[in-house]
């Protein structure tokens, strides 16, 4: 089993790293979708293989949402937006990758220092989760396209979720579903907002939404 878990976790980390380096938006969406699927699998293996209904349902829900629904939604928005499909980062890809590796190192170091009261399902879990979180934040901060920020948010969410799945047992179903529902609605609303942004401005560059401010350079 641990082989599975570890490999899934490694894939998770890799996808995040890949996201930092990929230049085309469709590509990014696909990566995030793949990450969603990985997350679903993780929920399955996280329960030590005890194939009960609960993890199955959860996994399907996760895969359905994060692996299929979101990517489809975002891809659609992107298709509607007749803008060039470049990521146009504020920080160049190479630098992003560099920072990514740094963040990976940081999260490894952190996970060494975190005293865990319970043993996680895999030693890799905490660093990968942290790294995914950091990567998500970094994408939000460093990318120009609004859509990219949604992706970043998703990655951040995934990271947090990874942490939860791997470390916290016995979160009630209702809460888990509620969380999922929230994330779904959040992304849905963001998608709608993106749609409107695109219609209003003919661009989806978040860094050009600077009308509202108290400071004029």
């Amino acid at each position, binding site marked *: 089993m641990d082989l599975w878990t570890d490999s899934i976790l490694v894939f998770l980390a890799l996808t995040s790293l890949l996201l930092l380096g990929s230049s085309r938006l469709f590509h990014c969406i696909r990566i995030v979708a793949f990450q969603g699927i990985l997350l679903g699998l993780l929920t399955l293996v996280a329960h030590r293989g005890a194939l009960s209904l609960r993890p199955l349902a959860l996994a399907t829900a996760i895969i359905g949402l994060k692996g299929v629904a979101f990517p489809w939604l975002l891809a659609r928005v992107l298709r509607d937006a007749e803008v060039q499909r470049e990521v146009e980062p504020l920080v160049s890809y190479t630098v992003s990758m560099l920072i990514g590796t740094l963040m990976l190192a940081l999260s490894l170091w952190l996970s060494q220092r975190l005293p865990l009261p319970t043993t996680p399902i895999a030693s890799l879990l905490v660093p990968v989760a942290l790294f995914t979180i950091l990567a998500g934040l970094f994408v939000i*901060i460093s990318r120009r396209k609004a859509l990219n920020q949604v992706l970043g948010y998703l990655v951040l969410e995934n990271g947090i979720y990874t942490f939860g799945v791997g470390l916290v047992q016995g979160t009630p179903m209702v809460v888990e579903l509620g969380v999922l529902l929230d994330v779904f609605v959040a992304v849905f609303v963001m998608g709608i907002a993106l749609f409107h942004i695109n219609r209003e401005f003919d661009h989806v560059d978040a860094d050009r*939404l600077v009308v509202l401010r*108290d*400071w004029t350079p």
Partner: protein
Amino acid sequence: MLLVLLAVALLLASACAALLTQKSYRWSTGCAVGGAVAASLLGMFPSVRILLGAPVESLRLPWSVPYGAFFVAVDALSAFFLVPIFVLSALAAVYGAEYLQTYRDRRALGPAWFFFNLLVASMVLVVIARNAVLFLVAWEVMALASFFLVTFEDEKESVRDAGWVYLVATHLGTAFLLALFILLGSTAGSPDFDQFSVAPSQAGLLFVLALVGFGAKAGFMPLHVWLPEAHPAAPSHVSALMSGVMIKTGIYGLVRTFTFLAQSAAPPPAWWGWLLCAVGLTSGIFGVLFALAQHDLKRLLAYHSVENIGIIALGLGVGLLGLSTGMPTLAALGFAGGLLHVLNHALFKGLLFLGAGAVAHAAGTREIDHLGGLLKRMPWTGLTFLIGAVAISGLPPLNGFVSELLIYLGAFHGLTAAASATAVSVLCVIGGLALIGGLAAACFTKAFGIVFLGEPRSDHAAQAHEPGLAMRLPMLLLAAGCVLIGLLAPLAVHALAPVLANVTGLSPQVVRTHVAPAGRIFPFVTAGGIGLLGVVAALAGVRSWLLSGRPVATNVTWDCGYTQPTPRMQYTASSFAQPLTDLFGILLQTRRRLVPPTGLFPRGASLATDTADVCAERLYAPVFLGIGRGLAALRWLQHGRVHLYVLYIALTLVVLLIWKLG
């Protein structure tokens, strides 16, 4: 007690009534003025009774706000401040009824009357409150009400600015008071005045807090900047009320704080007295100097309020010196002078502001240099204004002299009896008082002489007319008050004894023994005053006897051979004050714009001077500007880029994690 509370209730009720009936000018004015007068009459009885030695009355009701209790009491000190409040409020209200008539078609006067009665009610509450929260609430309501009265003519830019300056000044002062009262209540754990106790280590801090917090309201230099702005801006009956009694609530608070501090820090350290004397001298001298340089009548009066507050502070300072050096006589005389001057200033400054209002009302301008010759057109206003002018210059036989004499006596007593350290400070008081007196006389000869005497300097002045009875009567009564207190000085001093007992913490008997010298002196003063009037009458008789059957010709003023004398050849206020303003030019920083006559046949030439407040311009304006700049420099934080906003979040999180857990 109940009567006073009844008066407050009546004031509030009439205020609301005035607001509700504001559709009809007659009704709202009627309600407000009726309420104010009735309330004053109600309130006078208990106040006077307690001043004459009736026992202290207090009332304590639960009040469901944090630390709040409806705890009120009237002791001699409160009563002493209640009397001028009630008197002046009633008279100002009557005056205002006619004064505001000119505005009736321009605006609804309901709010004006509402805030007027609210102001009076809050002043009464301030003076009788015995609970910190109650006091502060009343204090702020007083500030707000007066602010809205100041900005009555808010269509004028200058009025709005004045109101703003006033609001800021009073609010910042209140911040100090918050700290003061909380600290006073913290050791005892109760915000009731009778529970207050002070840790000796804190006494000094508390004294300074009180000096700043109450000084901002009273108008001590350099916290006075709002006075010369607000008083001219307000309608005259309001200026009279504010300058006459409202700023005195600052003095009340200060004295009341002394009584708290006296319990713990007895005797008070000498530097309190020194500091207060220094403040008094600064306020007195600078106040009168700036007054000299003004040519707006009400602005001039406002600066005189600063001066008189200075004199009061001198009195209190001498009193504190007396307490700290263990010289009860010094203390008694100093406090007596300061407190009596509170009452006197209420009378004559109220009178003068009402007079100024009548002048502005009649001539349509407050610009002294455009007035003149009004005594012929407004004999009553002129006479009362003259009485006020003599009184405020501290000249016998009027009331101003009595209070200043008390301070002098205290100072001289300290001089002859005290060690040289104290003697030096009281010498400063003597010299300062003398200088202030001389300058004040100069300033009011100018004010009265230029405004009421000579020939009118403008058509406005020429068409001026005496106001109606409603405006004349209050002035007459106040003038009568000035004369009476001047002549009945011994009684006044006697009536002060319980108040002084309150302040100095000595028993009335002891106080009486210590003001005894003054008690022995004042009969002479009274005799002198009456004698003076007698001699004047006699001389007048002699003169008319001498002139009986002799030619009494009238002619133009001898004009040194000019064939076409015009009123514009008269001395103006500016030229009258010019020697003194030049002498102290370094302090006044007067700006003058001179267009000199040029050519062989010069056409136009003009000279305009204005003396802005040095403190406002050199001290506060730069500070406020600097703060504004500093804050503006930080605005880039809100630059509008959502990425960086998220970065803020991430950084905050990281910093916290490292700082708290790392």
